[in-house]
């Protein structure tokens, strides 16, 4: 399955809804999307991963890259994910300590910590 990307604004946050597989083949598309958003001034991103079927380390690398970019502008990058198989990959790599991970988009959008 291929990657799908949808973007919408909620207040000062930009929500990116990702679906399908984020892997070595599709990750460049997600990277472009994140770069475009930051270039256009969106520094507070919420990436909704609830419809992601597959995530590999290339995908993780793109998310980490996105985090670096928004941080350069005092921004934030929050993830929405409750899928155990996806969360496991963040845990294995220690990235649960790097990304704020929320159970719902609402929670992520209203988070300020």
């Amino acid at each position: 399955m291929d990657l799908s990307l949808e973007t919408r604004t909620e207040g000062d946050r930009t929500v990116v809804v990702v679906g399908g597989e984020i892997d070595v083949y599709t990750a460049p598309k997600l990277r472009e999307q994140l770069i475009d958003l930051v270039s256009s001034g969106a520094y507070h991103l919420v990436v909704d991963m609830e419809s992601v079927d597959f995530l590999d380390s290339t995908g993780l690398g793109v998310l980490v890259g996105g985090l670096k970019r928004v941080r350069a502008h005092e921004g934030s990058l929050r993830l929405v994910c409750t899928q155990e198989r996806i969360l496991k990959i963040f845990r294995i790599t220690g990235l649960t300590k790097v990304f704020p991970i929320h159970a719902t988009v609402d929670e992520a959008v209203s988070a300020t910590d």
Partner: protein
Amino acid sequence: MPTVELSFTPLPAHVRTARLIASTVGRRVGLDESLVDEVRLAVGEACARAVGVQRSGGQADDVVVAFSDDDGMFTVTVHDWAGAGSEVEMPDLVEATEDLDEAFHPGFGLAVVSGLVDDVEVTSGEPGTVVRMRWPLSSSVSS
């Protein structure tokens, strides 16, 4: 002797094919369904790494993935031909994060592999790196 062997030119699209074959062959040899996801991810990581190191080294030879089931184990090996020196350290990702860019980083995928798979062995040298992963088979459906 490998049961199924796949070789492919080092392109990201073929990593998906390798993943698909990993889960299909794994199921066929009787891999427990709870492990299929792990195998798919681990084989994908190892292949993505092999594709990455070969591309960055300009090495166009085929990446080779071999699947076999022997003695109640499902063994997958992924071979690249990038030569000795293609990095195989598995970085502490939490420490590394501040420096980490989305740029290709071969150690990243291996860290995922070693975090996922209990029985993994990485051998680096000439002509390249071999990642060998093994999983127990609950039953031997067919071979």
